[in-house]
């Protein structure tokens, strides 16, 4: 079969601006080669900074934000598109090669109707007339499972959900009938229950239109469902390249093996779960007095154990943490800590009460003052709660850095000089410095690459085993929950729909929502998506 896309020895460079130093030229992709045939899907996978998006955009001969293609060739149907020049490339983009961005919400123009944006490229290139383009858009809306395909195009971007928007964007890419589509993490920003629909829609649309695709993602389980081949990338280099089955079932390289096995942390569930450290009784909470986000929440965190709170965005799980910290006083109900009622407002709590409950944030970047060194960040709670100063403080900070497996060499670094995982570790050290009873973890690993996230989870588990810490762990990732939880609370639309020990919550009979949630989590094996879809169809036929 003829090669549709042939990338040979692609080199991509950029200019880096290290703070306080003159700009430097750096290479971000070091000679990557691959081929893609008509109607096939190649998955590009790697952690952030691996160069996967950059390679994807190179298929459109495009370099984002100062990125330059410095060497190699990108051949589309045998023609080197890097040598085409402005007019030639414009003719290819949006007609023969299309792009689906990660954040559809940011990629659509909010001032125009979806339909007009979907057919724009086809009209611009003159591939279709307006009425033909509308017909095709309607057909694609149908294929992608969008509601009411005939009138969907009349809506504005803010009138549809995130998952629908992502599918509309896929329709936009498919409308001109391209030979190749570049999907740049199309489901990363979506909830799992939405992700599965979008994945299924994309897969179906690719099958029906026989379009070739580059599918970029950091989630191996996702890419296994849609791709024919997978290329694993790291630091701009190719690590492994082969058919899906071989990569998933028989990876050759160490790095790929780590990626495949990353979800296999296991923690046995604690047998005795009655002694509650934090008890939340009948809590209702509302923002600005009207908008109610929590309805009658009853859960407890057993001492020395982990309660995982799981749910999709908007389910109220972060709000629950805000209620416990006292940032948002509940409108009804009470929070009890060590059998004593906690004052609802954090301002009314004693220093001792504040010390015992610490917080870990999703974005470690914004959780640390960028103008303070690690010494100041970790040292402040030591001075504030325990009055440690000078030598004593430095010694304790060094101890804490040892404890989080970083070593005292980092003591005078600024947050900007740390990697994502190191930042989160410093945040953990800051929480530990207060010697708390419980740490509220608000998605501490969801902004991190899988291997780094696994390291953080292992660290948290080790600390729990050593110091009897309790965690309230908020996450949307079921795999994380399976790995670390003793008990689980499933939240949906501000209510706890299921709460209990892990073994109970994760075994049938399920309520509808938990069932949907569990079945939507991509599994790292071939054919998972088809299986789920088949069962779903059978169920809906049965009802």
């Amino acid at each position: 079969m003829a090669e549709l896309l042939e990338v040979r020895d692609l080199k991509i460079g950029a200019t880096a601006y290290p703070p306080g130093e003159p700009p430097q030229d750096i290479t971000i992709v070091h000679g990557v080669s691959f081929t893609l045939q008509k109607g096939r899907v190649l998955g590009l996978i790697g952690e952030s900074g691996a160069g996967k998006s950059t390679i994807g955009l190179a298929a459109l001969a495009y370099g984002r934000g100062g990125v330059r293609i410095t060497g190699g060739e990108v051949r589309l149907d045998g023609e080197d598109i890097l040598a085409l020049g402005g007019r030639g490339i414009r003719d290819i983009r949006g007609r023969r090669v299309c792009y689906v961005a990660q954040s559809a919400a940011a990629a659509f123009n909010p001032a125009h109707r979806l339909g007009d944006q979907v057919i724009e490229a086809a009209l611009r290139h003159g591939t279709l007339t307006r009425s033909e383009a509308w017909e095709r858009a309607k057909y694609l809306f149908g294929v992608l499972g969008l509601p009411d395909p005939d009138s969907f195009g009349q809506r504005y971007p803010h009138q549809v959900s995130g998952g629908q928007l992502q599918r509309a964007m896929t329709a936009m890419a498919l409308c001109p009938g391209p030979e190749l589509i570049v999907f740049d993490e199309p489901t990363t920003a979506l909830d799992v229950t939405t992700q599965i629909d979008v994945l299924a829609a994309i897969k179906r649309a690719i099958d029906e239109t026989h379009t070739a695709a580059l599918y970029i993602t950091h989630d191996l389980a996702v890419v296994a469902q849609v791709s024919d081949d997978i290329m694993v990338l790291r630091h701009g280099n190719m690590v492994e390249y082969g058919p899906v089955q071989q990569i998933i079932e028989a990876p050759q390289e160490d790095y790929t093996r780590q990626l495949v096995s990353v979800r296999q942390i296991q923690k046995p569930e604690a047998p005795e779960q009655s002694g509650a450290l934090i008890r939340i009784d009948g809590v209702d909470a509302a923002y600005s007095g009207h908008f109610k986000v929590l309805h009658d929440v009853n859960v407890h965190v057993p001492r020395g154990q982990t309660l995982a709170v799981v749910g999709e965005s908007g389910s109220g799980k972060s709000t629950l943490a805000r209620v416990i910290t006292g940032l948002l006083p509940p409108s009804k109900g009470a929070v009890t800590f060590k059998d004593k009622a906690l004052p609802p407002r954090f301002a009314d709590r004693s220093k001792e009460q504040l010390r015992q409950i610490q917080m870990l944030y999703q974005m470690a970047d914004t959780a640390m003052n960028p103008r303070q060194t690690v010494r100041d960040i970790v040292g402040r709670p030591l001075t504030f709660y325990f009055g440690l100063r000078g030598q004593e403080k430095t010694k304790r900070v060094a101890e804490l850095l040892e404890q989080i497996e970083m070593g005292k060499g980092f003591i005078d670094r600024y947050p900007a000089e740390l990697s994502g995982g190191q930042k989160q570790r410093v945040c953990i050290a800051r929480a530990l410095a207060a010697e708390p009873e419980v740490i509220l973890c608000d998605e501490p690993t969801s902004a991190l690459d899988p291997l780094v996230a696994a390291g953080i989870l292992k660290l948290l588990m080790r600390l729990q085993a050593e110091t009897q810490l309790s965690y309230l762990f908020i996450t949307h990732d079921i795999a994380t929950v399976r790995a670390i939880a003793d008990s689980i609370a499933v939240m949906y639309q501000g209510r706890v729909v299921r709460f209990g020990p892990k073994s109970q919550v994760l075994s049938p009979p399920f309520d509808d929502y938990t069932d949907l949630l569990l079945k939507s989590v991509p599994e790292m094996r071939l054919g998972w998506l088809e299986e789920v879809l088949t069962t779903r169809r059978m169920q809906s036929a049965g009802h």
Partner: protein
Amino acid sequence: MRWRAVPLSAWIGMAGMALAVFCAVFAPWIAPFGEREVVGDIWLPMGGDYLLGTDNLGRDLLSRLIYGAQTTIFVALAATVLAFCMGVMLSFTAAVAGGWTDQGLSRVNDLMMSIPTLIFALIVLAVLPQELWILIAVIAVLESTRVFRIGRAVALDITVMEFVEAARLRGERRLWIIFREILPNTLSPLLAEFGLRFAFSVLFLSTLSFLGLGIQPPEADWGGIVKDNKDGIIFGIPAALIPGAAIAGLAICVNLVVDWLLNRTASLKGGRGDG
């Protein structure tokens, strides 16, 4: 920071500012004549003993310019520092406290800003006794309203960050949050604003002096020298233009440095500026 990365314009600005400060500090030693000394005929042309000629009373213009730098820079600097202390303190309090404190302070600030500054200053200075510290205080209060605006905007961006929330949850007091968590992160934009405000203070002081309500004669200050010599322009004598050029030069120099600082700030925030 690398010195080579500093652009030429910033160097020019810094050199100009250094020259002005040098004149101000060493005025008694470098000025060829005394500040109030009548040395010759009025409005003598440039050259000879009097490098820039003499003024409307026969005083050496260069000497008055050098002494004038002293007054002008001192008053403008004092007023700007005071304006920043007040503006930053109040605006950060408003941003951190929020609610009624914020509303109260912000609305009073709006009220102050709605009165034209020059008219406000003229009325107040006409009523109050003509003393240097009152002049400084009036300029400072008027400038602080502008500082308040920018300070509140910058601080609001920082107060919603999670590290401030973390500090609150730790139980830190408001002053700690203002000085340790927020101030260091707003320093760059505030520093740039400081340069700008300083230039405006120089201009404002000169305007007041020109109108006769600023520095009182016989003390020299740049705006005052322009006023003293303005009648000479009718006779084609450039004595009034020289202090005017000094004011413009200092303002431009300060702005050159500020522009560079702003660029650096932009690149600190993760933008890909050319700073």
